């Protein structure tokens, strides 16, 4: 098809470059977020607050790195979908292993107590 040959011709053409400001902003944000997640440990937050703060800063940092440093925000939509949908399989695996871990520790406790 005509459009395909045109795309091939343009392969060597560089992608659009972005303003330096956006990189510096993301860079600064990553520093601040890392500092905050370190503060979670510094102030010894415990329990649900600690876990939710850790996850919040982690996903924010990961999202910023992927979207802007790795250019996924400007990337072809088909590629973004191919990359992000498989992550649901990982989420399922995490869910399965949480259940498995709970079951294992339950049986261990039962048998260690009964064994004594």
């Amino acid at each position, binding site marked *: 098809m005509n459009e395909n040959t045109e*795309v091939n011709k*343009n392969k060597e053409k560089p992608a659009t470059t972005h303003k330096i400001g956006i990189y510096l902003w993301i860079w600064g944000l990553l520093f601040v977020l890392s500092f905050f997640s*370190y503060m979670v440990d*510094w102030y010894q937050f415990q329990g649900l607050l600690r876990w939710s703060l*850790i996850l919040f800063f*982690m996903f924010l*940092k990961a999202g910023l790195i992927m979207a802007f440093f790795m250019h996924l925000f400007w990337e*072809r939509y088909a*590629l973004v979908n191919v990359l992000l949908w498989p992550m649901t399989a990982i989420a399922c695996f995490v869910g399965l*292993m949480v259940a498995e871990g709970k079951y294992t520790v339950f049986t261990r406790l039962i048998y260690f107590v009964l064994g004594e």
Partner: protein
Amino acid sequence: MSDSSLDNLPKGWKSVPNDLGSDQTAFKGVQWGKAMMWIFLLSDTFIFSCFLISYMKGRASTVVDWPNTSHVFSLDFMGVPVPLLLIAIMTFVLITSSGTMALAVKYGYEKNRKMCGHLILATAIGGLIFVGMQAFEWSKLIHEGVRPWSNPFGAGQFGSYFFMITGFHGTHVSIGVIFLFIFARKVYRGDFDTGRRGFFTTMKSDYVSIEILGLYWHFVDLVWVFIFAFFYLW
């Protein structure tokens, strides 16, 4: 994308089946090397996920208390033990190197050879510092008696997960550093301006390679974000 031929293609959701069902190029306008690096990183994501999930399962199912990481990884600073000090510095070093890499990609596409080379070199040095600090951390823990099968701080599984996860990540950083040095030399030599052909390939060099290298390096930083959260902070 400034590419006019891409503007004629469907947008949004419709672009997904259109791209994936098309001939020759699945990801329109994406250089094949970049697409393949992304696919590799996806598979690497699964490997690291398996490690971290196995760590989660091991930690959740042990009946012995897990070692307190802010105690284990504390470092004496002027006689005062500061929790996770080395890990925090390692995190900032890796983020710094990620930032210099992102700028290297930008200057590469702008054909600013000198800046691109300097920034790649700075990234490589950041990576080296990171690996050095990791080696220090490993030797400190080994000295304190942490082994893959036991340790003086708590659950025996701690050591095996620590050495496997940080070791695999450190290997990735080391490989990245080697490639950063190689590409810094290529940039300084002007390979990407003259289109000089590579050692292993007959294809012409192009600054898109810097972006592909950058993807790998940012991924290493990305994995560290997860290791920092789950292994050190949790």
